[in-house]
């Protein structure tokens, strides 16, 4: 049915969709990590995470507008490179900071409550963030390119006949080192050890002298940081932002986290990439309005055969 590797145009189509899927998948994975990290530590599905991502995109837009008003018209080149670097430095810290504040103000007082309470609060936080976004960027979608063309639309290189665009390259160049860095952080540092211990057993970790609240706050910071990073590269690639963008992207990312096994870091990445490929090939080989059906169909089938996700392990019963 699908002329996957047929000659001529359709072969080209396959490879272009593959690149597109890889790029979108990395974006989903970045956001999914935020869900997974937080869930891994305190078993909270942070529904506000997608909207935090939206605030990051809004920040990216505002900072770009500021930069343009300071430096004048910006075209792809030296100056835009500096601005992109600046965005990649500032926005993740902003999102990380906001996430820590949300945890301190909303989730931390509810740490001892039944699990549904913080869950519902997360929905509330999501609404608050959406409305902040609406006040911030307005109700109409806006386009980053109307402020400045930070990354060129041109191709960086070609592999065979498949163009690799600068915009795709920016995503991959940013995402890959960050994922390696995150793995290193969690596996080989003191903080990572503390995080893993807290995830395993919060009370025991506390008894062992681990500053559990500090570890949780750091986890929220890292999750927010990744969402901010995703927001910057997303805005550079896609360009259009609106106050509702957090919902759909958050939903995809959350699905990716579940597919990979929520709470599991490599799982979130794997789930994100898998989702990216379904998203891309689904859009390319079937009708566009079938994409969501495909994605959630895969989710259902997967959960039937592997209820814990691809790499997830069974959560221990809490006594």
């Amino acid at each position, binding site marked *: 049915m699908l002329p996957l590797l047929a000659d001529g145009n359709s072969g080209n189509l396959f490879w272009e969709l593959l690149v597109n899927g890889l790029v979108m998948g990395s974006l989903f994975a970045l956001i999914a990590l935020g869900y997974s990290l937080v869930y891994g530590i305190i078993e909270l599905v942070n529904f506000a995470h997608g909207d935090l991502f939206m605030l990051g995109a809004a920040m990216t837009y505002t900072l770009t507008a500021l930069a343009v008003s300071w430096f004048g018209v910006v075209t792809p080149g030296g100056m835009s490179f500096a601005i992109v670097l600046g965005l990649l430095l500032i926005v993740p810290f902003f999102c990380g900071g906001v996430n820590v504040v949300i945890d301190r103000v909303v989730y931390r007082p509810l740490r001892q409550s039944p699990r549904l309470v913080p869950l519902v609060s997360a929905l509330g936080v999501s609404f608050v963030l959406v409305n902040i976004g609406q006040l911030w960027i307005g109700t109409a979608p806006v386009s980053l390119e*109307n402020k400045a063309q930070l990354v060129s639309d041109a191709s960086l290189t070609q592999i065979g006949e498949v163009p690799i665009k600068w915009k795709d390259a920016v995503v991959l160049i940013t995402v890959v080192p960050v994922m390696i860095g995150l793995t290193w952080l969690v596996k080989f540092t003191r903080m990572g050890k503390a995080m893993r211990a807290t995830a395993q057993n919060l009370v025991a970790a506390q008894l062992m002298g681990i500053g559990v609240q500090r570890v949780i706050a750091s986890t929220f910071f890292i999750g927010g940081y990744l969402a901010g990073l995703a927001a910057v590269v997303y805005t550079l690639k*896609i360009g259009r932002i609106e106050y509702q963008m957090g919902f759909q992207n958050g939903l995809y990312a959350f699905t990716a986290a579940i597919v990979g096994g929520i709470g599991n870091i490599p799982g979130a990445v794997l789930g994100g990439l898998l989702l990216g490929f379904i998203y*891309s090939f689904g*859009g*390319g080989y079937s009708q566009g309005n079938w*994409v969501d059906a495909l994605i959630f169909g895969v989710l259902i089938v997967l959960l039937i055969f592997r209820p814990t996700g691809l790499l997830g392990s069974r959560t221990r019963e809490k006594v």
Partner: protein
Amino acid sequence: MRFRWFHILLVFPFAIPFSAGCSGCNKREANTIVIVSSLPRTGSAKGQTDTMVNGIKMAIDEYDGKVGDFKILFQDKDDAEASSGQWTAAAETANANAAVNDKDVMVYIGPYNSGAAAVSMPILNKAGIAMISPAATATGLTKKNADNKDEPDIYRPSGKLNFTRVVPTDDLQGPIAARFIAEELKKKRVYVLNDNERYGEGIAKEFEAGARKLGLTVLGNEKINVAQQEFGSLMTKIKNSEGGPPDAIYFGGTTQSKGGQVAKDMIKSMPNCVLLVPDGCYEKAFIDSAGAGLEGRVFVTFGGQDPTRLTGAGKTFVEKYKEKYKTDPEAYAVYGYEAAKVALAAIKKVNKKDRDAIREAILGTKNFSEGAIGTWSFDENGDTTAQIFTISEIKNGNFVPVKELNGLKPSAP
């Protein structure tokens, strides 16, 4: 948890709307006639509907708020919700029911979206309230069509007509875009996309039919997933169509259903392709969301004349508008004004507070010239006989009209 005074303060803001609930509802006088408008006042259509409401208010102001023996009260209702960013069936239903239950409501101006019209038409039809839409253009709302045999009778449970519109319908607008592609741009191969909504899917079908009639090659007609944030893989697929990329893409949809993103993704992926969009994208918000590089690549059809092209009373209206609101009116401002003028003229003629009489007077509007778009009539379906279409391109962030076409002129074979 311990009781704290602090918590009382938290509850306070929520208590205000309830305690102050009745300070706004001053009693109306018996000779008040209410004109309601139901338009998406939240979300990205707000810029467009702001100018429509301004147009309506200007028309009422011209009468000093008094017509015949009656005082005119205008209610500006919202049929959109912030959570969805566009019209919702729930909000439109609520507005229609509120209008039915308010005995002073005689005219319902709106809605903006054809899908919303399909929701509120039967409700208002039963109550015999006249509707004048300044923007809803789906064919099936007033005319028999091949897609749905039940239309338009399902919208008229009382058997009488109550819906009129001052803009021409999509069975004219779709083919106009096809004509522009074939005759002006001299392109051959088109790909059709639609947003799977009442208006977008309908106009895309009309376009496709028109395009086939003109001998254009239609490579496909596909629904997009409007929940999606970008259409990179869709554009990749279209680019790799059999026989190469199309010369033109038609998108049946609105700014709210991601028209801007479709434009953006097309520009990035196909350097020699143009995009045509219908009047649902004819607003500043579309340009803001579509980004850069639109010049010569994106064209918009619109069932009427651009504000800059209006003459006579229309020109006067645009000047007065600029003087009063200090901005340029968007395209539909004049249609808001026109709709209100029709309503006011009918009320003046009837000079009775009677829904049925006013409804009949509005439907019987013939050779109407008190408005700003020239002389026109409502036909037996409640559609306007004014059928000039404008096709605009985008230059420096503004729509610039490039061509006016008459919808009734038969297409060249």
